[in-house]
């Protein structure tokens, strides 16, 4: 593609918004009410982990790993890839993320909340947004909740909730869990932009928020070190 600069995101959009929305609706129908189980179950584990309940702390990252693997297999690999061949590669990245989550869940120190207030609350905000608010975004576009995107089933809320959780907790090598969800948010934002969907702002804003929270946290840590 020697003339790559002549391409826009719209040139890579190979399906219509209607086809995509019907795909999501049919997917939701296939698994209903698993959406409720995943959202309430993950919320309960996150709250209990924040309250230092031991089993919840141990379960947190493995639950996220399972969510990424399920989303990769059921949505990206089996469904989305039928209308977007790029989703096959995204599925591989999601499986990689699931593996990383499983691997890092073996580390005992991951369950401690971040010492930085900004990172901790910023992460909690993102995680709760991905888990509880994101599914209702179709209402803003006057669309039916049949096309709601929920954690564990759809990539966007899974990525955003994970970014929030990774920000909120402290642990060695947890930065390894950031690239895949950030890349997905970039890819998803561009896809939604090409679909002329205002929801494109959500993954884009998530990237900006993660960068901002990490930056503020680093500055505040540097300031504390000087004092």
């Amino acid at each position: 593609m020697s003339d790559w600069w002549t391409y826009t995101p719209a040139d890579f959009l190979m399906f219509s918004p209607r086809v995509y929305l019907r795909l999501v609706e049919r997917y939701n129908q296939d698994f209903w009410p698993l959406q409720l189980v995943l959202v309430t179950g993950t919320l309960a584990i996150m709250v209990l982990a924040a309250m230092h309940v031991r089993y919840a702390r141990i379960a947190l990252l493995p639950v996220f790993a399972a969510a990424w693997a399920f989303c990769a297999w059921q949505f990206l690999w089996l469904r989305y890839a039928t209308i977007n061949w790029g989703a096959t590669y995204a599925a591989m990245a999601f499986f990689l993320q699931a593996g990383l989550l499983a691997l890092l869940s073996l580390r005992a120190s991951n369950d401690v909340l971040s010492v930085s207030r900004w990172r901790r609350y910023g992460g909690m905000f993102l995680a709760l947004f991905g888990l509880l608010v994101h599914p209702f975004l179709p209402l803003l576009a006057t669309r039916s909740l049949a096309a709601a995107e929920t954690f564990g089933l759809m990539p966007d809320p899974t990525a955003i909730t994970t970014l929030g959780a990774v920000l909120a907790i402290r642990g060695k090598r947890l930065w390894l869990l950031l690239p895949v969800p950030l890349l997905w948010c970039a890819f998803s934002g561009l896809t939604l932009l090409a679909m002329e969907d205002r929801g494109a702002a959500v993954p884009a804003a998530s990237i900006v928020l993660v960068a901002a929270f990490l930056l503020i946290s680093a500055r505040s840590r540097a300031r504390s070190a000087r004092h």
Partner: protein
Amino acid sequence: MRFTRRSVLQGFALGVSLPLIGQPAPAEVAGVTRRAIPSSGEEIPVIGLGTWITFNVGDDPVLQDECAAVMAAFFEGGGRMIDSSPMYGSSQPTIGYGLQKLKYPDRLFSAEKVWISDPTSGAEQIEASRAYWGVKRFDLMQVHNLVSWEEHLPMLFDMKAKAQLRYVGITTSEGRRHQEITRIMESQPIDFVQVTYNILDREAEERILPLAQEKGIAVIVNRPFRQGSLIRQLDDEPLPEWIAETGARSWAQFLLKFIVSHPAVTCAIPATTRVDHVRENLEAGGGVLPDEAIRRRMLDYVEAL
């Protein structure tokens, strides 16, 4: 690696037993202007059917049936050429589903593309495409966006010599790589070239269309409506009354008539998901095609908007 699930999809699609719409009558439907393919003299209607985006519907049975209905209306209205590519997601299995449902109409002119950078995989990809369509062979095989054309073209010429396909072509879109396209048109014995050409994107008029006439190469026009944005752009504007003398009664027909009235153009391939639109498109290929004076007037009118 890619599309491994598509074979499953295709199997699903072909396995579904659905009521048949009915095979279009093989007799030619009057009305749509036909142009000769210069290399053979075979005539094809000037309006074809593109499948980019519109036929990429995955395994959704409702949408697959909608596409099959579009194909049925296309054939019933006298259409012949359906164009697709391995790049178009599930469009190939969708076409295969529609063709099976319509019992493989005789009038079909199948236009496909090879789109793979590894030259050794070209034949394999063409065979996979053929299986999705469910046809014995393709009428036209094009090198998509000139990807590895130096390697693919000799293979396609060889397949043509063995009667495994009937015509060979190359494609580009949105004005990209026109210099390379003209170089290939000058040096290779291709039958077809596919380019973007519409009332606002007229770079092809400079060199490609005159060269196609000079070298006897058929021209397929893609993106006649700029993926629908041209129609959306013009929809609020009044259609000039004088265009009625050509039989055009909508902006879509206005735009298509401008394209297919160029003497070098063999076929335009608008894509749609709607039966009424495919009928409207085919109608544009009938009636009076604008002459040079009307084409000038059409151009001036649109540029003044």
